[in-house]
């Protein structure tokens, strides 16, 4: 079954009316998708540390249990840290949702097929790790339910969203890691974060 959804539409929908949602994006197109939807101080866009996006989300979710955390990443990035799904399942963060934008390719590096193109069912892996609320999302009709789950589901929540493999114009968020950290902390914790 070939994918029909476009990644930019999915991410734009996920980030519309985001309220006080905290967002972490994984290295690869997810970071550019989120920037295309609009740079935001409460988005931490990762430009490196491939495989670590879900764990940054876990650390944030454990530190701020009263806030919702959404990790947006690619299938290749998630594969590199696939064990983190088991670690997250042990912690059971009720406020954490992970959405993998699955184009079945390593888009950044020349569109080589990833394991999901060869049949790996990542949602089944997440479920097997102990994240019971894990889903494959294939149609735009399912997007409203996906958005709702990222805002309200008792986490951890996992979705693998099948999208068309396409090479898109880059939209880049700021790159300076120190800036990205400081502006996120200040927006979340107030100015006292600067002197913590």
């Amino acid at each position, binding site marked *: 079954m070939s994918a029909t959804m476009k990644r930019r539409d999915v991410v734009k929908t996920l980030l519309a009316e985001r309220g006080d949602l905290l967002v972490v994006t994984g290295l690869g197109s997810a970071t550019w998708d989120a920037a295309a939807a609009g740079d935001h101080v409460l988005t931490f866009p990762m430009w490196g540390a491939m495989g670590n996006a879900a764990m940054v989300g876990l650390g944030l979710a454990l530190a*701020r249990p009263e806030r919702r955390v959404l990790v947006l990443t690619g299938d290749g990035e998630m594969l590199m840290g696939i064990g983190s799904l088991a670690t997250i399942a042990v912690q059971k963060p009720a406020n954490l949702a992970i959405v993998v934008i699955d184009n079945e390719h390593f888009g950044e590096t020349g569109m080589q097929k990833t394991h999901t193109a060869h049949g790996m069912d990542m949602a089944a892996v997440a479920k097997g790790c102990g994240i019971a609320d894990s889903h494959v999302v294939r149609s735009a009709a399912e997007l409203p339910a996906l958005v709702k789950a990222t805002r309200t589901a008792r986490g951890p929540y996992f979705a693998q969203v099948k999208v068309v493999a396409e090479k898109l114009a880059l939209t880049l968020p700021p790159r300076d890691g120190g800036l990205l950290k400081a502006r996120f902390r200040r927006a979340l914790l107030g100015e006292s974060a600067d002197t913590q």
Partner: protein
Amino acid sequence: MSATASVDWSLAVHRTLKDAGVKIVGYVPDGGHKRLIELCHADAGMQTVVMTTEEEGIGLISGAWLGGEKSALLMQSSGVGNIINCLGMVAECRFPLVMLITMRGEYGEFNPWQVPMGQATQSVLEDMGVVVQRADAPEAIESAVNAALRLAYNSYCAVAVLIGQRVIGIKSFQEQVNQ
């Protein structure tokens, strides 16, 4: 148990972490950290996170600091080999990082497979911008951890405390096998 283990450094380190306000402790176990891990698990004020690879710990501490919480990582020296690329994020973002690393592959090691990474641990960390402090006696560990926490959280540094294999005690091959 080695003679030097009479100083209960694990208890002292747990207290030091607590006094510094550390709320999240991530680990891939090493025998040398056994008691400290148990103390952290038993502490309702600490979220203790068992990980599948040490690399996960770098994301964990980064996210925790984005959310305003202090954390620490426990690992064996071989685990340092698993975190190198992600230390780039720590350097670029200046995330405070405290790692308590029990050494293998040095003092009296019986397993040759531990030696290459053990011998490279300090220089690999330093190459990636981590400040390394060694503690080679049980009574030196608490103060080293205390200093590491201050350096990390007051001066926004990445700091590793290497707890020497001499402190953990040399086990014979048979004792290791039975452990």
